[in-house]
Protein backbone atom coordinates (compact mmCIF):
# COMPACT_ATOMS: atom_id res chain seq x y z
CA UNK A 1 0.00 0.00 0.00
CA UNK A 2 1.33 3.41 -0.96
CA UNK A 3 2.04 5.65 2.00
CA UNK A 4 1.61 9.40 2.05
CA UNK A 5 4.60 11.49 2.98
CA UNK A 6 4.46 11.88 6.73
CA UNK A 7 5.59 14.91 8.73
CA UNK A 8 9.04 14.04 9.97
CA UNK A 9 9.10 15.08 13.63
CA UNK A 10 11.72 12.52 14.63
CA UNK A 11 14.22 15.34 15.26
CA UNK A 12 12.13 16.90 18.04
CA UNK A 13 13.30 14.54 20.77
CA UNK A 14 15.47 14.81 22.78
CA UNK A 15 16.61 18.24 21.53
CA UNK A 16 13.33 20.05 22.28
CA UNK A 17 12.00 17.86 25.10
CA UNK A 18 9.52 19.77 27.26
CA UNK A 19 9.61 22.88 25.06
CA UNK A 20 7.14 24.63 22.83
CA UNK A 21 8.40 24.59 19.27
CA UNK A 22 7.30 26.68 16.30
CA UNK A 23 7.47 25.08 12.89
CA UNK A 24 8.25 26.75 9.59
CA UNK A 25 5.64 26.69 6.81
CA UNK A 26 6.68 23.15 5.83
CA UNK A 27 5.58 22.07 9.34
CA UNK A 28 8.81 20.14 9.84
CA UNK A 29 11.67 22.57 10.42
CA UNK A 30 11.77 24.16 13.87
CA UNK A 31 12.23 27.93 13.73
CA UNK A 32 12.04 28.69 17.43
CA UNK A 33 11.64 26.99 20.78
CA UNK A 34 11.13 28.06 24.36
CA UNK A 35 9.76 26.83 27.66
CA UNK A 36 7.24 29.67 27.46
CA UNK A 37 4.66 29.53 24.66
CA UNK A 38 4.48 33.29 24.21
CA UNK A 39 8.27 33.54 23.86
CA UNK A 40 8.35 30.77 21.25
CA UNK A 41 5.59 32.45 19.21
CA UNK A 42 7.25 35.87 19.50
CA UNK A 43 10.56 34.49 18.21
CA UNK A 44 8.83 32.77 15.28
CA UNK A 45 6.96 35.95 14.37
CA UNK A 46 10.25 37.86 14.46
CA UNK A 47 11.46 35.27 11.94
CA UNK A 48 8.65 36.32 9.61
CA UNK A 49 5.98 33.72 10.36
CA UNK A 50 2.52 35.26 10.81
CA UNK A 51 0.82 32.21 12.31
CA UNK A 52 3.42 29.56 13.17
CA UNK A 53 2.32 26.02 13.98
CA UNK A 54 3.05 25.40 17.67
CA UNK A 55 3.59 22.06 19.36
CA UNK A 56 4.58 21.14 22.89
CA UNK A 57 7.18 18.40 22.71
CA UNK A 58 6.69 15.78 25.43
CA UNK A 59 9.28 15.62 28.18
CA UNK A 60 9.77 11.96 27.41
CA UNK A 61 9.02 10.10 24.20
CA UNK A 62 7.39 6.93 25.42
CA UNK A 63 4.53 4.87 23.98
CA UNK A 64 1.38 6.94 24.47
CA UNK A 65 -2.23 6.10 25.27
CA UNK A 66 -3.63 9.43 26.41
CA UNK A 67 -2.39 9.40 29.97
CA UNK A 68 -3.28 11.85 32.74
Amino acid at each position, binding site marked *: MKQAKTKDWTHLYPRYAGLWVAFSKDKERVVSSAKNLEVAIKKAKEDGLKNPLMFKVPQ*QMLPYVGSY
Partner: protein
Amino acid sequence: MSARTSLKFPYSEFKIFPFSSSRRSIRIFRPIIPLTLFYRKKFAQFAALIDSGADYNIFHGDIAAYLGINLTSGSRRNIVGIGGEIKGYQHNIKIKIEDYIYKAPITFSNQIPDNSLATLGNKGFFDRFTVKLDYPSKIIQIRR
Protein backbone atom coordinates in the same frame (compact mmCIF):
# COMPACT_ATOMS: atom_id res chain seq x y z
CA MET B 1 -15.12 23.77 3.51
CA SER B 2 -18.30 22.76 1.68
CA ALA B 3 -20.42 19.76 2.66
CA ARG B 4 -18.74 17.65 -0.01
CA THR B 5 -15.23 18.77 0.65
CA SER B 6 -12.84 16.68 2.64
CA LEU B 7 -9.49 17.63 4.07
CA LYS B 8 -6.45 15.42 4.13
CA PHE B 9 -3.48 15.60 6.45
CA PRO B 10 -0.44 13.37 6.81
CA TYR B 11 0.42 11.53 10.00
CA SER B 12 3.37 12.85 12.02
CA GLU B 13 6.34 10.60 12.54
CA PHE B 14 8.10 10.43 15.91
CA LYS B 15 11.02 8.58 17.38
CA ILE B 16 9.97 7.06 20.69
CA PHE B 17 11.64 4.79 23.22
CA PRO B 18 10.07 1.63 24.63
CA PHE B 19 11.09 2.63 28.17
CA SER B 20 12.79 5.66 29.76
CA SER B 21 16.38 4.42 29.86
CA SER B 22 16.22 2.59 26.54
CA ARG B 23 18.79 3.44 23.87
CA ARG B 24 16.72 1.71 21.23
CA SER B 25 14.22 3.93 19.48
CA ILE B 26 11.12 3.01 17.53
CA ARG B 27 9.51 5.06 14.77
CA ILE B 28 5.81 5.58 15.27
CA PHE B 29 3.12 7.64 13.54
CA ARG B 30 0.46 9.75 15.22
CA PRO B 31 -2.66 11.40 13.76
CA ILE B 32 -1.91 15.04 14.47
CA ILE B 33 -3.50 17.96 12.62
CA PRO B 34 -3.02 21.73 12.66
CA LEU B 35 -5.79 24.05 13.80
CA THR B 36 -6.00 27.70 14.74
CA LEU B 37 -7.70 28.86 17.93
CA PHE B 38 -9.22 32.35 18.19
CA TYR B 39 -10.20 34.32 21.26
CA ARG B 40 -11.17 37.94 20.86
CA LYS B 41 -8.29 39.55 18.91
CA LYS B 42 -5.71 36.84 19.56
CA PHE B 43 -5.11 33.66 17.63
CA ALA B 44 -2.48 30.97 17.31
CA GLN B 45 -2.04 27.70 15.46
CA PHE B 46 -1.48 24.44 17.31
CA ALA B 47 -0.91 20.79 16.49
CA ALA B 48 -3.30 18.40 18.22
CA LEU B 49 -3.68 14.65 18.40
CA ILE B 50 -6.91 13.12 17.12
CA ASP B 51 -8.13 10.68 19.77
CA SER B 52 -11.53 9.01 19.41
CA GLY B 53 -11.15 7.66 22.95
CA ALA B 54 -11.13 11.16 24.42
CA ASP B 55 -14.47 12.60 25.50
CA TYR B 56 -13.34 16.21 25.18
CA ASN B 57 -10.89 18.48 23.41
CA ILE B 58 -8.08 19.01 25.92
CA PHE B 59 -5.42 21.70 25.51
CA HIS B 60 -2.63 23.01 27.70
CA GLY B 61 -3.37 25.89 30.07
CA ASP B 62 -0.46 27.78 28.47
CA ILE B 63 -2.64 28.19 25.41
CA ALA B 64 -5.50 29.72 27.36
CA ALA B 65 -3.04 32.14 28.96
CA TYR B 66 -1.58 33.10 25.59
CA LEU B 67 -5.01 33.75 24.10
CA GLY B 68 -6.03 35.88 27.07
CA ILE B 69 -8.63 33.46 28.38
CA ASN B 70 -9.40 33.64 32.09
CA LEU B 71 -8.88 29.93 32.70
CA THR B 72 -10.93 29.47 35.83
CA SER B 73 -13.92 31.40 34.47
CA GLY B 74 -14.83 28.34 32.41
CA SER B 75 -16.92 25.38 33.46
CA ARG B 76 -14.96 23.05 35.68
CA ARG B 77 -14.16 19.61 34.27
CA ASN B 78 -12.32 16.74 35.91
CA ILE B 79 -10.69 14.50 33.35
CA VAL B 80 -9.48 10.97 33.98
CA GLY B 81 -7.06 8.88 32.00
CA ILE B 82 -4.45 6.24 32.58
CA GLY B 83 -2.39 7.54 35.46
CA GLY B 84 -4.89 9.73 37.24
CA GLU B 85 -7.19 12.71 37.20
CA ILE B 86 -6.65 16.33 36.23
CA LYS B 87 -8.72 19.47 36.66
CA GLY B 88 -9.57 21.71 33.75
CA TYR B 89 -11.93 24.45 32.65
CA GLN B 90 -14.09 24.33 29.58
CA HIS B 91 -14.49 27.33 27.28
CA ASN B 92 -16.26 27.76 23.96
CA ILE B 93 -13.58 28.69 21.47
CA LYS B 94 -13.54 29.56 17.78
CA ILE B 95 -11.59 26.88 15.92
CA LYS B 96 -10.33 27.02 12.33
CA ILE B 97 -9.31 23.89 10.46
CA GLU B 98 -8.09 24.86 7.00
CA ASP B 99 -10.93 27.15 5.81
CA TYR B 100 -13.66 25.79 8.08
CA ILE B 101 -14.42 27.82 11.19
CA TYR B 102 -16.65 26.66 14.02
CA LYS B 103 -17.13 27.19 17.74
CA ALA B 104 -16.70 24.29 20.13
CA PRO B 105 -15.81 23.53 23.73
CA ILE B 106 -12.17 23.08 24.68
CA THR B 107 -11.06 22.11 28.17
CA PHE B 108 -7.84 23.85 29.16
CA SER B 109 -5.78 22.55 32.03
CA ASN B 110 -2.56 23.47 33.77
CA GLN B 111 -2.32 19.90 35.01
CA ILE B 112 -1.70 18.17 31.69
CA PRO B 113 1.40 16.05 32.28
CA ASP B 114 4.62 16.94 30.47
CA ASN B 115 4.35 13.78 28.41
CA SER B 116 0.83 14.41 27.14
CA LEU B 117 -0.40 16.01 23.95
CA ALA B 118 -3.11 18.50 23.09
CA THR B 119 -6.04 16.31 22.11
CA LEU B 120 -9.10 16.51 19.88
CA GLY B 121 -11.85 14.30 21.24
CA ASN B 122 -15.49 13.45 20.70
CA LYS B 123 -17.24 16.62 21.90
CA GLY B 124 -16.15 19.49 19.69
CA PHE B 125 -14.35 17.48 17.04
CA PHE B 126 -15.73 14.01 16.28
CA ASP B 127 -19.28 15.34 16.66
CA ARG B 128 -18.50 17.81 13.86
CA PHE B 129 -16.64 15.70 11.33
CA THR B 130 -16.53 12.30 9.74
CA VAL B 131 -13.00 11.23 10.48
CA LYS B 132 -11.05 8.55 8.66
CA LEU B 133 -7.71 7.53 10.12
CA ASP B 134 -6.00 5.53 7.39
CA TYR B 135 -2.96 4.29 9.27
CA PRO B 136 -1.63 1.99 6.52
CA SER B 137 -1.56 4.93 4.10
CA LYS B 138 -0.69 7.43 6.85
CA ILE B 139 -3.49 9.76 5.80
CA ILE B 140 -5.99 11.56 8.03
CA GLN B 141 -9.19 12.53 6.26
CA ILE B 142 -11.84 14.73 7.81
CA ARG B 143 -15.14 15.56 6.19
CA ARG B 144 -18.03 17.67 7.32
